[in-house]
């Protein structure tokens, strides 16, 4: 039995290492390790709770809005603050475009090269490529001239002799199955998506100054003022620009992303039976209306059973550290995030090392469990929960996609299902976000310019102690922040993050985390070039800086807060 190591796993956010045992061409067992951490939660202690969104935003620059949202929701929950409808709508638009843009970047720039062999694109016939593309959608760039120009560009790049980020990859691997024309089409869209993503995300700049790390979030609302008669506020000009960009986002998803996804998936249908994983799914639901009702429903599914959606109870979440480099509440004991106090204790091998001790502790990620169960979160979980709950829009798109691929719902429990669900998710949200903009415009027309609830802004109005939590269904799945406030300062802060759920190591019972479980049984044609591992891991869209953020309380340094 051969043990292989893939480190760094590239085309993800952050630092992830996979070790796997291969027997007879299949993965027999796998271990997922997060190899970097910073300790931001500890750094947060003693700080102003109104600042927490700005700090936690730096958990991750890829999911650059999600921790801000979860953080302000946690503080608003703790202080019982109700935000104005316009602030909610602006947040929905920001979350919506974050989701769509993030998914497109993932598909083309992080995941596509697992399925698309760029070198094969050089052999494609541009005319046939145009015919293929035109059979899929009426995207204006579907011409032979266009694909020829892209092919020439790639040829010139290769001829320059410097392959840059495309050097030394798995090109020519037997697991690549697309015909040259499909490869050329996908390569063209890889480049097009690079242009597109920077345009559509300007919505964040309009509503929040910049992206990454937009800066208009506030506990109690948003900082972007609304006034149609001011040049320094959200006015008709800016709203119209957002409308144009949302349309651009929707068109690209409908006419490029989804057709490409379906075309590529049709060549890789065997991946609908690979990479299933733990089979438990959880979604917190998202996109509240003015009354707090969620557009995407929340819920949990167990054992791939779509007939029963369980309600989520945050009290049933606990984090375990039996295989994580922390000291915890004791072997086999988990802690609820409100009580989450763990001490870091690196016990791994001294670097440089070849292998981790996977019988012991082997990751900086903890193992969150829901009712002691390992749960997968992310677009697949979100779509499955919505589908199983009878969410009308979701059901229509899922059935359409399954129909086009000629597969049944069980095909979703797989690597391919995860990748398809992300596209479905992007499509649904791309079509829904313009409606929130229309609603916002409607409110403004009626003279409602409110963006912030000032009632509890002044910390002197707060109770001596408060605690709350904020849920957000982020692009990568169920995200929760928990905060305890004492004397106007942060007493304790914990975040349980989508990629922690998914990348988690084993728990005390030996239950694998979702990455680990999904890898078991995956075929590996060439252990020296484990392309298949990348396919399944990338299907989760790992975000490791998010996953690892917890820190110890064992330091002797006391945060000195000077009374000012």
């Amino acid at each position, binding site marked *: 039995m051969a043990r292989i190591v*893939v480190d760094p796993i*590239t085309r993800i956010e952050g630092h992830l290492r996979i070790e796997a045992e291969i027997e007879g061409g299949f993965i027999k067992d796998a271990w997922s390790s997060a190899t970097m951490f910073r300790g931001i939660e500890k*750094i947060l202690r003693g700080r*102003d709770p109104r600042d927490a969104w700005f700090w936690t935003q730096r958990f991750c620059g890829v999911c650059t809005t999600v921790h801000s949202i979860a953080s302000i929701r946690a503080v608003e929950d703790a202080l019982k603050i109700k935000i104005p409808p316009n602030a909610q709508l602006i947040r929905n638009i920001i979350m919506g475009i974050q989701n769509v843009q993030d998914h497109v970047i993932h598909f083309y720039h992080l995941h596509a090269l697992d399925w698309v062999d760029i070198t094969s694109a050089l052999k494609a016939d541009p005319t046939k490529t145009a015919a293929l593309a035109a059979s899929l959608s009426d995207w204006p760039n579907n011409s032979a001239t266009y694909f020829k120009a892209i092919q020439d560009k790639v040829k010139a790049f290769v001829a320059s002799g410097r392959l840059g980020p495309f050097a030394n990859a*798995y090109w020519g691997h037997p697991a690549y199955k697309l015909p040259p024309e499909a490869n050329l089409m996908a390569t063209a869209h890889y480049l097009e998506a690079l242009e597109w993503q920077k345009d559509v995300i300007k919505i964040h700049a309009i509503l929040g100054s*910049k992206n990454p790390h937009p800066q*208009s979030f506030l506990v109690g609302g948003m900082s972007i003022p609304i006034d149609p008669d001011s040049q320094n506020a959200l006015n008709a000009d800016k709203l119209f620009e957002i409308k144009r960009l949302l349309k651009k986002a929707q068109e690209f998803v409908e006419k490029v992303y989804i057709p490409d996804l379906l075309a590529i998936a049709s060549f890789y249908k065997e991946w609908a039976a690979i990479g299933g994983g733990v089979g438990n799914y959880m979604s917190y639901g998202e996109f509240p209306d003015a009354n707090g009702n969620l557009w995407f429903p929340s819920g949990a599914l167990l054992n791939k059973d779509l007939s029963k959606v369980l309600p989520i109870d945050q009290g049933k979440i606990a984090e375990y550290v039996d295989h994580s480099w922390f000291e915890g509440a004791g072997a086999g004991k988990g802690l609820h995030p409100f009580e989450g106090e763990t001490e870091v204790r690196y016990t791994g091998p*001294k670097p440089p090392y070849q292998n981790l001790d996977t019988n012991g502790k082997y990751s900086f990620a903890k193992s969150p469990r829901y009712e002691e169960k390992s749960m997968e979160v992310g677009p697949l979980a979100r779509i499955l929960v919505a589908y199983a709950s009878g969410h009308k829009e979701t059901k229509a798109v899922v059935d359409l996609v399954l129909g086009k691929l000629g597969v049944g719902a069980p095909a979703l429990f797989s690597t391919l299902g995860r990748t398809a669900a992300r596209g479905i998710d992007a499509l649904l949200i791309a079509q829904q976000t313009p409606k929130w903009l229309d609603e916002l415009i409607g409110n403004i027309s009626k003279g409602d310019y409110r963006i912030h609830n000032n009632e509890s802004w002044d910390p002197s109005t707060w109770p001596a102690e408060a605690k709350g939590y904020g849920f957000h269904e982020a692009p990568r799945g169920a995200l929760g922040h928990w905060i305890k406030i004492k004397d106007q300062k942060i007493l304790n802060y914990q975040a349980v993050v989508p990629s922690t759920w998914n990348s988690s190591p084993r728990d005390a019972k030996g239950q694998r985390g979702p990455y680990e479980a999904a890898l078991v049984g995956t075929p590996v044609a060439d252990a020296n070039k484990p392309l298949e591992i990348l396919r399944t891991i990338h299907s989760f869209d790992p975000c490791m*800086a998010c996953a690892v953020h917890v820190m110890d309380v064992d330091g002797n340094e006391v945060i000195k807060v000077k009374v000012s």
Partner: protein
Amino acid sequence: MSIQKNSDTSEKAEQSAEKREYSVGEILKQRGVSRRDFLKFCTAMTAAMSLPASFAPSVAQALDEVKRPTLVWLNFQDCTGDTEALLRASNPTVGEIILDILSVDYHETIMAAAGHQADEALENTITKYKGKYLCVVEGSISMKDGGVYGCTSGKTHLEIARRVCGSALATIAIGTCAAYGGIAAAVPNPTGAVGVKDAVPGATVINLPGCPCNADNLTATVVHYLVFGKIPAMDSKGRPLFAYGKRIHDNCERRPHFDAGQYVEHWGDDAHRKGFCLYKMGCKGPATFHNCPTQRYNEKTSWPVASGHGCAGCSEPQFWDTMSPLYRRLPNVPGFGIEATADKIGLGLVAGAGAAFAVHGALNALRKDKEPEETKEG
């Protein structure tokens, strides 16, 4: 030609390329980038570098002559925000940077290779182009407990940084984490995080702080090097003067309201809607040196103050401690003139602002700074 087997072919291709290296201008032309677009890019770069417009032709000429330089990008204790910023670059775009302007031989977020093939790509590049490649570092470097809090391919980031930055022509520390330790280094700095200059003292480091860094400042720095053949003049904090030479407060579009005493008092009030000064809402612009007001973000769409939120001071060392709380008013903003530089006034202001936290490391780091070699713009 086709590239069937990755490494062999890239080797062959590289051998043939050695016979004839193309200039950036030639490559762009080959890729179908029009001369007009190229000149437009040169003009934008000239502006980003705070050079007079008459420099644009020299920029174009220089880029016509230089070869595609090699760049490796290392991610350490980071959030990938600066990589995302790179993806938003507009002039040139990330596509142009990757395909036309630079040879980005290692960047974990975008590269196709993984695992030992990725390691090999890095190894090949730093060996073959020793002393000639540019290195970009994103994220801080953990020094505590032998650096175990940051590892890639079983090696500590500290070890990787020493090796890769140590043999680079120059290292660009992108973002405040790589420049000064950033968020991970905030009190109590649980992992002993530091910036590149502290981790690899012998390296030639250009700091491009910001959270994240403005991608235009990165491309301008690279172009500055390509055009002038030397790294830009920097202040005592290692920041290029062309991007960090002026105080936000002095270039702020809302400065007239500060001078007129017109302030936002509450989020969403009449003054907020009219775009009055955010000083009372905690804006750190008076203590921060960065070109945000003029360069702006996302193709010049906006910047924090324009979205109704104060500046957070993110381009200043240890701003996480010295500039927080976020909504706390800076004490005693003096009426110094716009000729003041970071080196002359920064310390005093920041020391005042940092009252909320004990900032042992932070102030030490500031004091350590040497006198600036050049504080005036050249």
